[in-house]
């Protein structure tokens, strides 16, 4: 078959203040017409650099192609002049980016930005261009395209913008579309829609897609071939089925193992590749993966393995064949081995929990006033949380899921009294928190702690790690410096950092390590309750697994109670005993983890679960995903709030709000006709 894109021995260097840094090297890959190729790998492995190198966008970031070649459709892009390059960018190849909101110029309308592309490359009149732009917007599934056309990026939702981004990329009918994590920033429901759209468009327009993702599930669903990158090199390259069936590189193997699936055994620890991806400035000698590799041998320390053909695929590992043999031999053994519970008391059983509830939420609401003006008296509100009640038992992990904007974080913040509640009660250890004096509340805070999503924003960048973790000690216990230091160092080791990190600053740590710092701070006072708001969402899969494991270990040790707010349903399922599903400020379903995923009663829950991409290319299925997007909480739909998107909505749903009722023991749902 004809190669649309052919990359040979690509090496990209960046000129930095400290000198030259090689971001990727020896990257050799090709894409054929009409093919979808996925690049996967942890954060920092060079995926984005590869894609930008193809577009030669690295020119603008002090980067240069120092070796190798990129040939697109017979044209060598490596040495093309800027002018010629411009005529190819956007026309023959186009890009879709991760953050749709950041990828549009905020001060121009969506329409004008699409037209701009068309006019740049095609000799067409403005009105023709507008026509085409409108057609594209409609084609990518944007309703009321004429209105959207004249709107500004901030007036569209993320999902909508990503569709518009796709429309813009397709404006000139490119042969190759490079999509760099096009769905990472989106909800699962929207992700499913966008991926579906991409598939559809690819077939319709006959283009090739280079899809970059770190989600193996997405790769499994989309890719024809998969390329695995690590530390700037390709470590494995195979057909999608081959790769999932039999990974030849220990890194690929690790990645696949790290995936939490919907049927993972909740009683066992999640698998994770130990350590983290090295910084470009101090890559290890030899095989870059050797410090994290369970198979590393002497040779790996010294000599980097080349990418070679093995079993109809390419792998860069000295031990590839060995590993494959071993796997085939040990497959069954491995399976059984991990299935055995590691520790006895690790089994999270209902019985283990005392039935005494630690936290009880009754009719909790939080409204944000909006649009108040001088002349009108009627006030409108964003109902971020609207009459939510549930309770969390001691030692339990309660998971909270729902699309973005459904009110999860707000609920958490109100619960911790970081914001005043509008109505309702939060009873913690038998006391109504909102009635406490501020001093008593501060005391109470010892027992309830918080871990946030953003590992970069949740620690004061100017403080040393020791001080950050020591802050709660300093506030609540007047212990001596020495005691404090001992305690902090103890905590550091507990969360998997080293004592010597005491004097370092947060920016010297990776995201996962920072999250560990945040956890150490949260548990410093031996709290009873920890709220983890998307605590792992921003992390790589393997790091996610490490953190989840850590949280579970801590829970076991200290009888912690968690409220775990999550994005990734797999992870929430794995960690939680019970799960609540929120939609537009309301709790729509609540059940134990297994029950919820096995027998989702609410159509929303069902849709959510079905939107999850499955990391198994053999299991391709027809998706029944939720259509549309979450409405604005400022004026939620009447009746059942979900009726606008519900496949089973009836007239009743439009009018009557369903009651939150128990359909089985412990399984609550707010739906007129539960599935």
């Amino acid at each position: 078959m004809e190669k649309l894109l052919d990359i040979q021995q690509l090496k990209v260097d960046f000129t930095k203040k400290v000198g030259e840094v090689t971001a990727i090297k020896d990257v050799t890959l090709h894409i054929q017409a009409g093919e979808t190729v996925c690049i996967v790998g942890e954060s920092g492995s060079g995926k984005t650099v590869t894609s930008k190198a193809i577009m030669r966008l690295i020119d603008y970031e002090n980067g240069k192609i120092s070796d190798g070649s990129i040939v697109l459709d017979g044209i060598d892009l490596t040495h093309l002049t800027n002018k010629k390059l411009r005529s190819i960018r956007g026309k023959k190849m186009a890009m879709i980016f991760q953050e749709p909101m950041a990828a549009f110029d905020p001060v121009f309308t969506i329409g004008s930005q699409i037209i701009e592309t068309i006019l740049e490359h095609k000799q067409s009149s403005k009105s023709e261009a507008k026509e085409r732009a409108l057609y594209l917007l409609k084609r990518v599934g944007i309703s009321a395209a004429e209105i959207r056309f004249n709107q500004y990026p901030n007036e569209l939702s993320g999902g909508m913008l990503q569709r518009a981004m796709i429309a813009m990329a397709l404006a000139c009918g490119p042969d190759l579309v490079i999509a760099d994590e096009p769905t990472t920033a989106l909800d699962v429901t929207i992700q499913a829609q966008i991926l579906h759209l991409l598939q559809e468009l690819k077939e319709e327009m006959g283009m090739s897609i280079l899809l970059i993702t770190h989600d193996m599930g997405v790769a499994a669903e989309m890719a024809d071939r998969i390329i695995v990158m690590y530390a700037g090199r390709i470590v494995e390259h195979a057909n999608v089925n081959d790769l999932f069936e039999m990974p030849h590189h220990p890194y690929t193997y690790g990645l696949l193992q790290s995936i939490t699936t919907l049927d993972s055994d909740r009683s066992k620890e999640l698998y994770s590749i130990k350590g983290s991806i090295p910084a470009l400035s101090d890559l290890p000698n030899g095989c870059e993966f050797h410090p994290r590799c369970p198979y590393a041998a002497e040779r790996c320390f010294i000599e980097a393995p080349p990418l070679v053909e093995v079993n109809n695929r390419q792998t860069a590992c000295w031990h590839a064949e060995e590993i494959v043999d071993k796997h085939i031999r040990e497959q069954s053994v491995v399976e059984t081995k991990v299935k055995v519970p590691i520790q006895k008391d690790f089994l999270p059983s209902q019985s283990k929990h005392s039935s005494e509830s630690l936290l009880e939420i009754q009719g909790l609401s939080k409204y944000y006033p909006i649009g108040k003006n001088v002349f009108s008296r009627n006030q409108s509100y964003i109902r971020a949380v609207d009459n939510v009640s549930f309770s969390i038992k001691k030692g339990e992990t309660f998971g909270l899921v729902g699309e973005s904007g459904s009110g999860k974080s707000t609920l958490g913040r109100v619960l911790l009294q970081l914001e005043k509640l509008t109505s309702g009660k939060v009873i913690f250890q038998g006391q109504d928190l909102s009635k406490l004096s501020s001093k008593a509340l501060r005391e109470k805070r010892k027992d309830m702690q918080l871990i946030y999503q953003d590992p970069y924003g949740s620690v004061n960048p100017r403080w040393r790690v020791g001080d950050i973790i020591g802050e709660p000690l300093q506030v609540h216990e007047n212990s001596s410096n020495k005691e404090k230091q001992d305690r902090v160092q103890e905590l550091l080791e507990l969360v998997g950092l080293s004592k010597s990190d005491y004097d370092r600053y947060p920016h010297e740590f990776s995201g996962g390590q920072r999250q560990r710092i945040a956890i150490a701070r949260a548990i410093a006072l031996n709290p009873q309750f920890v709220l983890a708001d998307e605590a792992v969402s921003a992390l790589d899969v393997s790091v996610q697994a490490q953190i989840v494991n850590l949280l579970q270990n801590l829970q076991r040790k200290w009888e912690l109670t968690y409220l775990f707010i999550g994005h990734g349903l797999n992870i929430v399922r794995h960690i939680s005993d019970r799960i609540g599903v929120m939609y537009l400020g309301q709790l729509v379903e609540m059940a134990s983890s297994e029950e919820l995923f096995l027998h989702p009663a609410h159509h929303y829950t069902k849709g959510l679960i079905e939107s999850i991409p499955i990391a198994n290319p053999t299991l391709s299925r027809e998706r029944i995903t939720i259509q549309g997007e979450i409405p604005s909480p400022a004026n939620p739909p009447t009746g059942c709030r979900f009726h606008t998107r519900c496949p089973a909505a009836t007239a009743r749903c439009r009018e009557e709000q369903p009651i939150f009722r128990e359909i089985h023991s412990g399984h609550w749902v707010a739906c007129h006709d539960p599935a």
Partner: protein
Amino acid sequence: MKEMVNTEKVLRVPKWTLTKQKQPFSASKLFLYVAVIIVLFFIGCALFPKLIAPYSPTYMNTELILSKPSAAHLFGTDYFGRDVFSLVIYGSRDSLIICVASVLIGSIIGGIIGGFAGYMGGIVDVIFMRIIEILMTIPGILLALAIAAALGPSLLNIVLAVAASSIPAFARVMRGQMISIKKRQYIDASRSIGTPSWKIFIWHILPNSFSPLLVMGTIGLGTSILIGSGLSFLGLGIIKEIPDWGALLSQGRGYLTVGWWISTFPGLSITLFVLAINIIGDKLRDSFDPKTSSTR
């Protein structure tokens, strides 16, 4: 192909050493060093002028007025016959006092007002910002002029006048920063630990809202010398035995055609100092910004 492998190997070795070593010598580093040296030099001048200045700044050599820069008088002599170089050296003290003190006072008061308004929010914010707005409607130099005229000329009053005129700008910047810092997650995190508000303020909010204030301050240093010299231009300055740079500049302006050096050298000192402070300020801001200072 072989060659390439070789070069790669060669390249790899120094890369290791590079990261281990100090950063290589770059233009911006050079500027920073020069800037630091300049500032240190001026501070040195302000503290120990005797060690540097060749003559007494008040000695009037009536035989040698308006003489061109020469080996004996590096910056020439002024119309009193004083050595301009010595005057600049000695003048650095009051110049630095004026700019540093006024910026300090202005930024502290402005910072407190802005910080308080931004931190408290709500009605407090509205009221304080109204006051700032009122101050802003009166242009800075007018305010300085009125205050200098009201209080009479003295070093302290000049400082106060210049400080007062810079308060609104500092307050605004501080408020903006405060509002953005308030939303950071580590503030929430600290609150959820149970840290009392005032401690949060001192531990987390203040240090993190500093950098824009710092940048403003570096600009403010220059502006304050300028406002000070504007006051002496308008006749509201102070006549001291040893004039500050602004006053020197203002005094020498009538002699540009016959003795350009009288005002040029103090002028250059102002520029050089402001330049150096700005370079350092930029660097400081960068290093305050965890994003740009991060080595990872």
